């Protein structure tokens, strides 16, 4: 045992801080320290769990880790100390103690397990790996003969219960006397009217509620626990283990207090089956009971004994497990299995139908004549008709036939000749029964499907294909092939052989719009696959679509397909400029389409920019810009490619079209307006004067919804170009000033417009287009107004490039960022530490290695001083390449221990 002076010295050292304390206990290898440390008051103060908002953490307790290591060496000493540890909610400590007690004697372990089971029962969740440690204790206890404690601890872990999903209605009164409707009555009791109101509210709320089953362990951990630890428990405890599991399940069923038709525990089949779609904790428990009961029988326990264990519970689920077990192991006790099969209650109970059908199918061939005759008489008698049945005689007959068909199907191979003939007649009249062993059967399919595959369709001539698609008719069954499926197959065939379809386009032009759309989609795919197509023929086909009137969704899809195809051709300059007039005819016609309607815009489904490519008018405006760039490319020689060389005068049709949609009286759609924002840099390139002249119309202050649609799309979709910035500087300023009005605190960091605005400004600062000392204070105002995350995101982006050794950054750019850094530090000094959240990444920026060491060191020091030792700022030191000499090793040495 260590000398008192050594202990005192140790206390002095470990009293310096948590790192020393933790290190000391992690290094102890001898149990000799247990006694003196206990005398000093250790082992009585486990750290509680920590709750931080919605997060919970469980601090490590060095003392319990030490005890866990010492338990195999000095179990008696450790057992004494374990008794001193007070109750704790720290799962990490429970896990250590579980590892300790496994080395103790049976009685000590059982006492602890009983106490631990009580604690577990009070916990909503048991986190992994505590479940594993407790599972090991359960097995050890059972092995030592402490079966009661073992089963108790296992039960506390395996308990599951039903909970009501979603929300709890606060307006529904619970104890009547505490109900208040706002104005308190003299005795606080509800009036009749309030009672009625509450009852109605409760009924409507309950109708929307559903329940589910939850356990202390996750479904995965639950199954792992059952698989790993139950076999040992079953071997040692036998039917007591099975009884424990049955009790847990019965209690869970009882806890489903909503008593709706849709119960929380739904189990279509007891055996493993595709219909058992749920994989929650109740499924794991049912599987465990099912397998345990079979295993007990296989291990020599009488079938009747196991059946009795299951049958003791009242829920029909257990009766189904009895029937399942009898079906699986009927040869162990044929008489009992036959009794269960030839039981009128079982035969009539629809809730038992699946397991009963399997049992009857299994034992029917071996039944004696009495049993067989009894079953056949029940089938012959037909179903019991409730007095509320309202059908006529024919309906009654058909109902009986279907009912009998289902039951005969279970045993049709073992029927006598008369019944076989009768069953054949029923099947002839009504068809083969589908899934006769289920009262309801869930099935899924994937659609749409095609009546022919692409290979088969592609093997035919275009004429044959055209005839086939125009004449083929679907059955109407949603699970069967339909026109959409066929259209998709046609699209795939067209994509492979576009020329053949374009040559025979007349065969499709006048047919179903759906198949014209498929041909256009196939052509688009071919273009994407870099297969050349005859654009004259393609445009001819598109003109036929333009000529089609109608505002139905089919026609709209066809129009949109046209525009997408045209877009592909214009973007990649695949279309001959001599087709300019025809191309414009198509684009111009589509640009007046009614889609998007004001109603569709008002639904705000997705951002305007995304909506624009899914609407006809929006896509048409995108194509107008693509058309302009196509003409620009074809008319401007590379040598004269400069902004002033081209203008809207060269494309007057585009000018008219663009200006038309800038009039909110004609086109009030934010979806369409977003297109101008997305292409603003290109429009400025095509005609700078036009862009300057129309900038106020594109981002109109008087129409905030239109302005924001264009402005936000511009910021999100366009990099920070110089020329657009010069034109839009005033709008950048206004956007910075508007940041107070348009707070987006709930929006994810990546989606916040403030962050994107900051990125633009910081990039522009690097280019020298804005600076901290500008008269209008644009940059400074941004950092003053911005939400912390937005300001930080702006810095983070540039820091990423600055830290990347591969990126070339000129000295001039470095100097500009130095000036910006000085400005940001000045801002921090002015506003104090509360602005620090805005500039979490500033340290990383300074430490990027781009600035000279002396400047870096002094600014990092100032930043640390201003930040008041905030850890995120402090850590940036480690990133600074300059730290690699002297500072870094020392810092990392400290940081190893926090």
């Amino acid at each position, binding site marked *: 045992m260590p000398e008192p002076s*050594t202990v005192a010295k140790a206390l002095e050292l*470990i*009293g310096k801080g*948590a790192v020393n*304390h933790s290190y000391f206990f992690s290094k*102890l290898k001898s149990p*000799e*320290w247990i006694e003196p440390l206990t005398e000093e008051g250790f082992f009585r103060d486990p750290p509680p769990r920590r709750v931080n908002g919605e997060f919970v953490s469980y601090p490590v307790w060095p003392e319990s880790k030490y005890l866990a290591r010492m338990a195999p060496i000095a179990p008696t000493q450790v057992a004494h100390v374990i008794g001193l540890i007070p109750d704790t909610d720290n799962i990490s400590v429970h896990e250590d103690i579980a590892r300790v007690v496994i080395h103790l004697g049976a009685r000590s372990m059982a006492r602890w397990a009983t106490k631990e089971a009580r604690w577990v029962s009070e916990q909503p969740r048991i986190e992994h790996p505590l479940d594993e440690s407790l599972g090991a204790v359960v097995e050890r206890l059972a092995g030592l003969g402490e079966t009661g404690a073992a089963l108790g601890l296992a039960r506390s872990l395996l308990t599951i219960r039903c909970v009501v999903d979603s929300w709890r209605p606060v307006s529904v009164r619970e104890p009547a006397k505490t109900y208040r409707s706002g104005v308190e009555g003299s005795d606080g009791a509800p009036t009749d009217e309030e009672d009625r109101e509450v009852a109605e509210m409760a009924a409507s709320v309950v109708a929307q509620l559903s329940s589910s089953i939850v356990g202390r362990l996750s479904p995965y951990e639950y199954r792992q626990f059952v698989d790993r630890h139950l076999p040992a428990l079953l071997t040692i405890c036998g039917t007591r283990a099975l009884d424990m599991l049955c009790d847990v399940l019965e209690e869970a069923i009882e806890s489903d207090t909503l008593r709706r038709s849709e119960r929380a525990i739904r189990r279509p089949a007891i055996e493993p089956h595709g219909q058992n779609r749920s994989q929650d904790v109740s499924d794991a428990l049912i599987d465990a009971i099912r397998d345990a009961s079979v295993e007990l029988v296989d291990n020599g326990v009488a079938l009747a004994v196991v059946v009795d264990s299951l049958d003791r519970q009242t829920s029909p689920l257990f009766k189904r497990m009895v029937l399942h077990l009898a079906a699986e192991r009927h040869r162990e006790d044929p008489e009992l299995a036959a009794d269960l099969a030839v039981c009128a209650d079982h035969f009539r109970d629809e809730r038992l139908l699946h397991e009963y059908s399997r049992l009857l199918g299994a034992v029917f061939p071996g039944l004696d004549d009495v049993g067989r005759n009894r079953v056949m008489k029940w089938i012959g008698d037909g179903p019991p008709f409730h007095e509320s049945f309202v059908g006529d005689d024919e309906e009654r007959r058909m109902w009986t036939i279907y009912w009998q068909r289902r039951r005969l199907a279970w045993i049709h191979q073992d029927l006598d000749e008369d019944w076989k003939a009768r069953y054949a007649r029923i099947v002839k009249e009504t068809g083969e029964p589908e899934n006769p062993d289920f009262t309801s059967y869930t099935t899924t399919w994937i659609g749409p499907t095609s009546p022919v595959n692409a290979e088969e369709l592609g093997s035919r001539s275009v004429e044959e294909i055209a005839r086939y698609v125009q004449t083929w008719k679907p059955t109407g069954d949603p699970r069967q092939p339909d026109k959409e499926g066929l259209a998709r197959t046609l699209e795939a065939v067209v994509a492979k052989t576009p020329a053949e379809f374009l040559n025979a386009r007349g065969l499709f032009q006048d047919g179903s719009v759906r198949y014209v759309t498929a041909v256009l989609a196939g052509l688009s795919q071919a273009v994407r696959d870099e297969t050349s197509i005859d654009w004259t023929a393609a445009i001819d086909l598109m003109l036929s679509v333009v000529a089609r009137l109608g505002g139905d969704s089919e026609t709209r899809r066809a129009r949109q397909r046209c525009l997408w195809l045209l877009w592909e051709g214009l973007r990649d300059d695949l279309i001959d400029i001599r087709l300019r007039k025809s191309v414009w005819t198509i684009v111009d016609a589509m640009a007046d389409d009614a889609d998007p309607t004001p109603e569709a815009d008002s639904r705000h489904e997705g951002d305007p920019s995304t909506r624009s490519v899914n609407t006809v008018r929006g896509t048409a405006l995108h194509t107008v810009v693509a058309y302009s760039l196509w003409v620009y490319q074809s008319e401007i020689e590379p040598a004269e490619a400069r902004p002033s060389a081209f203008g809207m005068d060269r494309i007057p049709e585009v000018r008219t079209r663009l200006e038309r949609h800038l009039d909110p009286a004609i086109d009030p759609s934010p979806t369409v307006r977003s297109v101008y924002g997305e292409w603003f840099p290109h429009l400025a390139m095509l005609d700078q004067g036009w862009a300057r002249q129309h900038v106020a119309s594109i981002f109109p202050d008087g129409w905030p919804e239109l302005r924001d649609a264009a402005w936000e799309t511009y910021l999100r979709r366009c990099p920070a170009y110089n020329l657009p910035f010069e034109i839009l500087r005033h709008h950048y300023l206004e956007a910075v000033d508007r940041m107070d009005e348009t707070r987006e605190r709930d929006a994810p960091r990546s989606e916040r417009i403030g962050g994107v605005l900051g990125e633009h400004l910081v990039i522009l600062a690097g280019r020298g287009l804005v600076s901290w000392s500008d008269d209008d204070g644009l940059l400074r105002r941004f950092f003053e107004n911005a939400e912390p995350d937005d300001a930080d995101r702006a810095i983070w982006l540039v820091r990423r490039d600055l830290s990347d050794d591969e990126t070339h950054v000129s000295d001039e750019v470095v100097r500009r960022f130095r000036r910006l850094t000085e400005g940001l530090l000045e801002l921090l000094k002015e506003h104090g530490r509360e602005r620090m959240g805005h500039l979490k990444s500033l340290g990383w920026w300074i430490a990027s290695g781009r600035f000279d060491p002396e400047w870096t060191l002094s600014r990092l020091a100032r930043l640390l001083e201003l930040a008041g030792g905030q850890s995120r700022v402090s850590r940036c030191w480690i990133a600074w390449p300059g730290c690699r000499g002297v500072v870094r090793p020392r810092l990392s040495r*400290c940081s190893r221990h*926090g």
Partner: protein
Amino acid sequence: MEKIGELYPEEAEGRTSTGSMKERVFKLKDALDKAKRLSAGYSEPGGWTGPFDRHLHRFLEKLGDFFDWVDSHRPSRRAQFQRTLVGLDPSGHDLPKPLRDRRYRAWKRMSSFFQKTSHHRSSPGLDKFRERIGELEAFLSSVLLPTTFDDLDAIDALLKESGDA
């Protein structure tokens, strides 16, 4: 007035303070914590759910709110001291009670010495004063300077010396 009350207790008609308010508040808090621990009407995280009427329920909730406020805004000197030390420890972890008590006792001893000295209730010699200053410096260094390998090396050496390495 307090001083006058102490000098003339009879005239002050019982208004004389016979114990600090803070002490009484903490006693009440201990009583509430005990009730939470032992009462069947309280559970975590449900709170007070016993068969109380609405008025008592509200009162108990408000009492809890009050002591939460006391904990965060008017902690005891000891709690304030402990919180500061945990805040200064880079690991963010607390030390076990014996070590916390040890540090608090050391702090109290120093605090008491410097208070007495500065209020002229005692006049230690220069050596004694220097010794205490040294203690204070050592204490502050232990909580303000980051842990280094030197400390860990010292622990290793100590364990080796005691035969546990």
